[in-house]
């Protein structure tokens, strides 16, 4: 084993992580990423052998939830090491330096490590008012994003805000907030890791994948890694048997709710949301929203603030009509309106016709058949 690897194993042991636990972690990561088991050795090697790649974490119009989620990264002691595997040279929430010293740290990375560093962006990017809705050190977020993401080896848009605009971009989008993809078109190797916030398990899995293979996992149409967003919540949900059976929670705290019936009628968005929540769950597998009796709100989907609301109705109402206008309510009303209109029409026709003098009786049906060649 090389010195570097020894250093790493020593390091692990100092932290009370045995070599075996570490390899176990690598196996777990390998399976989280759905990689063949033989690759787990390669994951281990990649983690310990790598030069610490530099990571820059930018926060724009965010709530810091993804940073907090990152701090909850699972497989505790070893996740800590995964952090050490990176050199986090800029992250406003945790870095010691402030002000000019912090700005300098960022400048150094962008200047010295061009094309080699990773960027995480948390939060959306405002475009109205020349970007004055989010400035850092007097610079507009969009400027910083262009420069920093533009020079990066890869960018992770972490959380729904960075990936799709998220909450700040919800109607009426007062600040012209955009996702990273829309604000800085054409940047290299952009991966969206949505959810509000992104799950620590998926954050770790994504980084390990990149560190191991130096490329990003396959993505879907919305730029999300398939390993975490390839299947519907609904298709992996522990309450699915109750859904199929027709057993639903009807009121909060009712017998069905306590028994773990399906939350569909309470507004669950599991049927239209892609994420691996039911399988990896949250906080080291402790629980997840549906596990705790609350419907999924679809937090990993683009525009879920507008498309999944009202949250307690599983079907969105026609947009812009406001709460209370369900599709069925509008549909029934429209159908009733049509029926009423035609009933009126029928009545008027009847009255009009009965007032007219009877026309000569129309020809009787036993008339000749149309012949070939008759015009139409």
């Amino acid at each position, binding site marked *: 084993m090389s010195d570097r690897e020894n250093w790493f194993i020593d390091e692990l042991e100092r932290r009370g992580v045995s070599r075996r636990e570490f390899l176990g972690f690598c196996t777990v990561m390998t399976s989280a990423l759905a990689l063949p088991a033989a690759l787990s050795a390669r994951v281990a090697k990649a983690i310990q052998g790598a030069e610490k790649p530099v990571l820059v974490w930018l926060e724009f119009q965010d709530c810091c939830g993804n940073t907090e989620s990152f701090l909850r990264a699972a497989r505790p002691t070893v996740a800590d090491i995964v952090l050490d595997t990176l050199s986090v040279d800029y992250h406003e929430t945790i870095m010691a330096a402030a002000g000019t*010293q912090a700005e300098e740290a960022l400048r150094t990375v962008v200047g010295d490590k061009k094309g080699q560093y990773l960027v995480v962006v948390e939060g959306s990017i405002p475009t109205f008012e020349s970007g004055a809705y989010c400035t850092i050190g007097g610079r507009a977020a969009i400027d910083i994003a262009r420069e920093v993401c533009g020079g990066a080896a890869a960018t992770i848009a972490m959380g729904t805000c960075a990936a799709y605009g998220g*909450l700040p971009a919800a109607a009426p989008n007062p600040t012209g907030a955009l996702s990273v993809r829309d604000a800085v078109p054409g940047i290299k190797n952009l991966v969206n890791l949505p959810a509000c916030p992104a799950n620590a398990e998926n954050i770790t899995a994504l980084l390990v994948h990149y560190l191991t293979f130096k490329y990003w996992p396959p993505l879907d149409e919305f730029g999300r890694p398939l390993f975490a967003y390839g299947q519907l919540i609904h298709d992996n949900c522990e309450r699915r048997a109750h859904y199929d059976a027709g057993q639903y929670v009807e009121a909060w705290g009712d017998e069905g709710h306590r028994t773990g019936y399906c939350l569909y009628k309470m507004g669950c968005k599991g049927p239209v949301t892609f994420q691996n929540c039911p399988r990896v769950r949250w906080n080291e597998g402790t629980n997840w929203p549906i596990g705790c009796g609350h419907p999924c709100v679809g937090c990993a989907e683009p525009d879920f603030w507008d498309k999944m*609301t*009202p949250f307690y109705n599983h079907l969105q109402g026609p947009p812009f009509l*406001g709460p209370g206008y369900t599709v069925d309510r509008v549909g029934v009303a429209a159908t009733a309106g049509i029926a009423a209109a035609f009933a009126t029409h029928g009545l008027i026709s009847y009255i009009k016709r009965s007032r007219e003098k009877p026309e000569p009786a129309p020809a009787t049906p036993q008339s000749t058949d149309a012949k070939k060649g008759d015009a139409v």
Partner: protein
Amino acid sequence: MTHIVVDPVTRIEGHLRIEAEVDGGKVQDAWSSSTMFRGIELILQGRDPRDAWVFTQRICGVCTTVHAIASIRAVENAIGAVPPPNARLLRNLIIAMQAVQDHVVHFYHLHALDWVDIVSALSANPARTSSLAESISDWPLSSAKYFAGVRDRLKGFVERGQLGPFANAYWGHPAYKLPPEANLMAVAHYLEALDWQREVIKVHAILGGKNPHLQSFLVGGMATPVDPDKQSSLNADTLASVRALITKAHDFVARVYIPDVLAVASFYKDWAGYGAGVGNYLVYGEYPEDEGPTAPLFLPPGVIRGRDLTKVERLDPSQITEMVSHSWYEYDGGDGKALHPFQGETRPKYTGPKPPYDRLDTAAKYSWLKSPRYAGLPMEVGPLSRMLVAYASGHARVKELVGTVLQKLNVGPEALFSTLGRVAARAIETLVLAEKQGEWLDQLAANMARHDLRTHDNAKWDPSSWPSDATGAGFHEAPRGALGHWVHIRNGAIANYQCIVPSTWNAGPRDASSQRGPYEEALIGTPVADPAKPVEILRTIHSFDPCLACGVH
């Protein structure tokens, strides 16, 4: 006169910019500005009030529960829903664990590096560190070997040459006063706290599905079912897990956090003389011990003016207003007005310099924060305010702990009005809450034993049961202080929504009569040894635990 700008202020939540005039080694004047706006109050308009908590929760991912709580309380207040006892207890448990975890993370991961010199820790003697640690606590991780391990790990980290988040800081600055051994101990606890916070917050996952951004709140109660006989509900097994985590939380607070705060504080007693701020303290009160709007609160509400601990005024919510004379907003009736949140307006109007810029025009408007006032006065909110009001109202446990701390540090109660006072008050509050949690858990278990399984007031779930026009206010004590949400509901949809958040109170700019906000006032007189490395400014600002995503929203 030197004009200094600290932007970004780091190790906080959000985007804060401090500008200050320094002369004679002291801050003479200061301006606090937040440079990020999202407009969540505007985004809420026209939506279903039952959805609002999910939106407002995303005001902040650090204090991830508080805007959810304030929101459901505001809507419940408007529509007249009364959550049953189990919902109240579940909420109390969630709120308390939020405060405990948030305070510890603040101390170790956001604040400590202002007091602790990591580089100095490299030269610590592990054996002496061990005796220091053992002299202040019986925490088991205290052997010389353990500290040697931490030091070597730190060495290894430094020797690899990539300092990552610890690069470029103020190490070696003369304002750092701790001996190397104390620094090493603090570094060890920085790392332990990182593991601890991830562990204890699982209480939120059990009771709320996940953390951050728990997902079990409901207008009218909680979505978490309780039933001792059901595997999909909170039952004896899950209660036991919560119990274990609560114990773990208390253990660390009592045996690591409190002793560390006392140890660090004893080297920085001069900071009991800086950072006092506006001297007015506002508390809404928290932890209802019974149902309904008049239920007694475990931490009492009240207002203290002019540092007068002999008198706690009754809180009158109608005295609360917000001004925008120095904020990038306009008011319909003129920017000089002070509006109560029920009449509140959020009309962003940027008039600052076009980015990129070097200086803000601090004579004009200079922040995305509004300026909240109580009876026209700026108010400090937060753990210090809560502990002062509790202390002055005769809260037994708070009085006892405050007394102990003052005595251990050998200072008088006036020391509380300071940067150091905030650090101490936060620690005391953490202990009080860590001790209290078990009681609420016991009450929950007792209810379940009696087969009281209600967690929600279903009667008010359907919007057709609501008045067509209603207003409500929801108050909450968030980790950083008094939080209020005000909602106006018309025909089942939100007509207006206003939040006044702890960090709006504390970090807000000057008002129409040029009264400084609490951050600004607290900075006056703060010593600055080297204007190029203003670590002292960070100390006072960090003592408030800023959260600007909250403050502006």
